[in-house]
């Protein structure tokens, strides 16, 4: 597959490290709710179709990207820089 890195251009996915589902909401590290944390770490939507996922351009600029890709056809839609598109959520929101 080819992923369009915003800094480096279209590159083979072999240059990237997969980071999995990007739509999971990570609780704050201070959040003591084991169920919330357990669901975050272990449960998945696992859609057949549009999937938002993380990829890092490890053998390039090392940026973490949020990529929208169809898991049935492998067609890639939007590519965004993960740090920009993460809502700058306060830790408190996720406690």
């Amino acid at each position: 597959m080819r992923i369009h890195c915003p800094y480096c251009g279209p590159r083979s996915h072999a240059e990237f490290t997969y980071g999995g589902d990007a739509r999971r909401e990570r609780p704050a590290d201070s959040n003591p709710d084991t169920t919330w944390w357990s669901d975050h770490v272990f449960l998945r939507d696992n859609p057949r179709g549009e999937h938002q996922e993380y990829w890092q351009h490890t053998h390039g600029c090392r940026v973490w990207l949020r990529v929208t890709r169809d898991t049935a056809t492998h067609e890639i839609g939007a590519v965004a820089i993960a740090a920009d598109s993460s809502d700058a959520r306060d830790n408190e929101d996720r406690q």
Partner: protein
Amino acid sequence: MRYSFWNLAREALRGHRHWQRAWRDADPAKHYDVVIVGGGGHGLATAYYLAANHDVGRIAVIEKGWLGGGNTGRNTTIVRSNYMLGNNTDFYEWGLKLWEGLSQDLNFNVMLSQRGQFNLCHSVAQMNAARRRGNVMRAHGIDAELLDAKAVASALPHLDYRETARFPIYGALYQGRAGTARHDAVAWGYARAADQLGVDIIQNCEVTGYSFEGERVTGVHTSRGHIGAGRVGIAVAGNTGRLAGMAGLRLPIESHLLQAFVTESVKPCLDYVVGFGASHFYISQSDKGGLVFGGDLDGYNSYAQRGNLPLVEDVIESGVALMPWLSRARLLRHWGGVMDMTLDGSPIIAPTPVDGLYINGGWCYGGFKATPASGWCFAHLLAEGQAHPLIEDFNLERFADGRVLDEKGVGPTAWAH
């Protein structure tokens, strides 16, 4: 008609006109006591053992395409019982014992070849890990040997023992009773045997949802209408998440893509199953002569059943590193399947929080060898309503509980298992 040499010879003289259909193409009835969703090896085996071992009434297997067309028809056919943690050890060994009588049981030759498997080690650390695994196997009464490089070389003289080998061979963990079986035959054999015991196998019938009475599942909605069920068991590896999702469940499973490869058919040149230790790669030679091999997942969620070149290169490089003569063989075909990767690499055979709905999935890329034991245990669960002791560890709660079975020790990364 029974399969036997005498019947085969007799039919040879009669133009083979009297062979019957291996299984009926059943039409769905209104209601069954147990409905199994998924007509792959596991679903069909479940149906067979339900019919053979339990008294549950009417049983149906519902398959969205043609039976055996999913992972059962796509895998690299390896059979073994060399697991280390929790129930895994005894479960797979029970499976191997069932394999050993399966052709006779089903009256269908599944061509089980217990030729032996070598899992190579390339460092002291790997030998130590192999020693632990082998000792656990032996403690459970399962055959295992830890071999040094010399013993490996005398059985497999054509691996790379040169000075220039990047990862020299230190030795191997060997299981003599491990080997291969003919994957299609397993699906067809279970289908025929189940059909003969009255199981309805309904093909080209896709489940689109469940019907409920209150909180309890009462049946499935399908492309061929509603089918009522006392209990529903899903055995749809690759699509377990989707089938569970129809009941509002989220599972610790990601669907990932595994590729498999076969070369042109050549005269016998590899008598064992060999697993490389320096990268994830395994190879055996089928009874037709093709060298069948595979390795890692591609490494990204996928339902596409086809993969990309980087993995193809990785796998082939590993093969040529392991066996320098493989370089001159030619790749005939490579294909892919959808793997149910759990977040600990071990399977799930358990009731779900939804009353009347049971799951058999999470087989990662090791489901084929588990086919008989999986069917046997899932049948028990569907008949009795609770897990057989052999599979108590394969529950859904283990993730929240902190009792996962992580054979590889890589943690909650689905594609790393």
